[in-house]
């Protein structure tokens, strides 16, 4: 059975079409990634799935319940760990967890035991009775995660779980999420604008761009579909149009031109053999080359391939 089914979601805020027909489905027990730059519609999609936002059109079912018609049933089944924490900074970690559990209908010894268990699980038991204001960024994020898990949800939504964390804390959190997914037998939907995060964590993922899903698949499968290697050529001057023609003639057709106006990406069957050929061809045409690099397909390339845009540039530009 599918844990999440999303069909044709549309949502407009004023002049902005935040969602423009988002469709995908998530199987029970998997970690599913929604990958895309800021502003692509990932968070809005999650907000529809956790019943915060009403879509203008389309349908979504979470754990067998329609998010519009059976909102409260959905709310009992899901855990939501939002991008911005929403924790009560003036309360202690334990108080936050107790309140969250109570509104989910838990009480007494069962709730107290569950809260103790979670404080241990996410590693903030020592700080449980301290006011959250004094927590570090990583500790707050761990508390957020515990808050989403109190009532033993079946589906967990993690919106940008590692944004704002330093690289070390990020890697630690990845391990944590993978461990939780295992231990709590959860279906997890996570959004991220870090390609390596999706690559590391997600069993399957969907790339979201401009309010719709451009491609859906496993990270390995998506990369395998891009046969061959990416060759990135950086020119000294911006003779992009000439270079395109030359590269096409050298059996290395250009797939994309990056926003800096002097970097081209070509896809070739074998990077090692192509590089001398490319350099020779460009040199013969009088085009100066600053650098050439070869890379095996990465999610970056997958993104580039399906959207025609460079991920890093698009992400920082929005």
């Amino acid at each position, binding site marked *: 059975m599918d844990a999440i089914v999303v069909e044709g979601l549309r949502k407009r805020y004023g002049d902005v079409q935040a969602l423009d027909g988002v469709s995908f489905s998530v199987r029970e027990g998997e970690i599913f990634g929604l990958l895309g730059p800021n502003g692509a519609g990932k968070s809005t999609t999650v*907000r529809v799935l956790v019943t915060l936002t009403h879509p203008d059109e389309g349908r979504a079912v979470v754990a067998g319940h329609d998010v519009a018609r059976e909102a409260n049933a959905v709310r009992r089944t899901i855990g939501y760990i939002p991008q911005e924490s*929403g924790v009560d900074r003036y309360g202690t970690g334990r108080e936050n967890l107790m309140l969250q559990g109570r*509104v989910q*209908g838990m009480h007494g010894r069962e709730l107290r035991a569950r809260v103790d268990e979670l404080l241990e699980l996410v590693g903030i038991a020592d700080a449980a009775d301290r006011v959250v204001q004094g927590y570090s960024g990583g500790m707050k994020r761990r508390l957020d995660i515990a808050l989403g898990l109190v009532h033993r949800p079946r589906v967990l939504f993690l919106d940008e779980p590692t944004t704002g964390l330093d690289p070390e804390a990020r890697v630690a959190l990845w391990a944590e999420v993978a461990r939780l997914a295992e231990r709590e037998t959860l279906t997890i939907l996570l959004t991220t604008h870090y390609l390596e995060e999706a690559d590391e964590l997600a069993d399957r993922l969907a790339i979201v761009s401009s309010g719709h899903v451009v491609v859906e698949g496993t990270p390995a499968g998506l990369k395998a579909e891009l046969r061959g290697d990416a060759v990135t050529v950086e020119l000294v001057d911006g003779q992009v149009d000439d270079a395109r023609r030359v590269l096409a003639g050298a059996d290395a057709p250009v797939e994309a031109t990056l926003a800096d106006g002097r970097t081209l990406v070509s896809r070739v069957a074998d990077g090692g053999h192509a590089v001398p050929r490319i350099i020779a061809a460009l040199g013969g045409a009088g085009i100066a080359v600053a650098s050439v690099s070869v890379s095996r397909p990465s999610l970056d390339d997958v993104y580039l391939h399906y959207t025609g845009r460079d991920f890093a540039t698009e992400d920082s530009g929005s």
Partner: protein
Amino acid sequence: MTAARHTVFMVQRQARNLMREPIWIALLLIQPMVWLILYGQLFKNVTRLGGFGTTSYVTFLAPAIVVMNSFFGATWSGMAMVADLDRKFVERFLATPASRLSLVLSQIVRSALTAGLQALVILVVALALGVHVHTGALGWLVVVVVGMLVNSAFAGISQGLALLTRREATMITLANFIGLPLLFLSSTLLAQRQMPHWMRVAADFNPVNWGVKAARAVVLPGTDWSSVGVHLGYLVALCVVTAAFANWTFRAYRRSL
């Protein structure tokens, strides 16, 4: 039932957080005393004008200070809602089965409980200053209840504006805009008989004055219980209306997400 239970949980959370603020508690207790002592001294001789129902100005003033303090406190009560909205605290609970009503109601109840506590402090200080509550224990209860009702009534408006605008600046503007005008359009500081005619008429439509009339009637001799009952009734009705307004604005906020 769920709404009531969840309201209790949410009020507990706010109360616990406030208890961690010793400065807040100190100001909460000192502020009403300052009103009472400052105004009590400033206008001490005004009772000679007549129409005050007592020659002791502090006796005339004490129940009205309860109302004034409750009213002032209420105009700021939306600040906590704006903070909870800003910090996404409210959103976190919207993704749970938490009662929607409880998220608004708890703010009003918290505000009213604070006002009730301050009312008690004022009455104790007034007692020390020689104020005699004519109707005894029942009178004390009425004064505290009036304080809580006046507070709830205006807290509902403040919460509604907080939800509509989601900006602290609006709360500050509201507090300034209605604070002093409604105070001076009431018999808080002066006997209604000493007010110009048009102000006396306007005061009859001022909820602050309803509270002052009810609270003062049980403190001074010659209590007219039917008037007390009527004014309490007005205040209860107003509380229901403004709480409904706050709840309506919360629905509008949720639809805007």
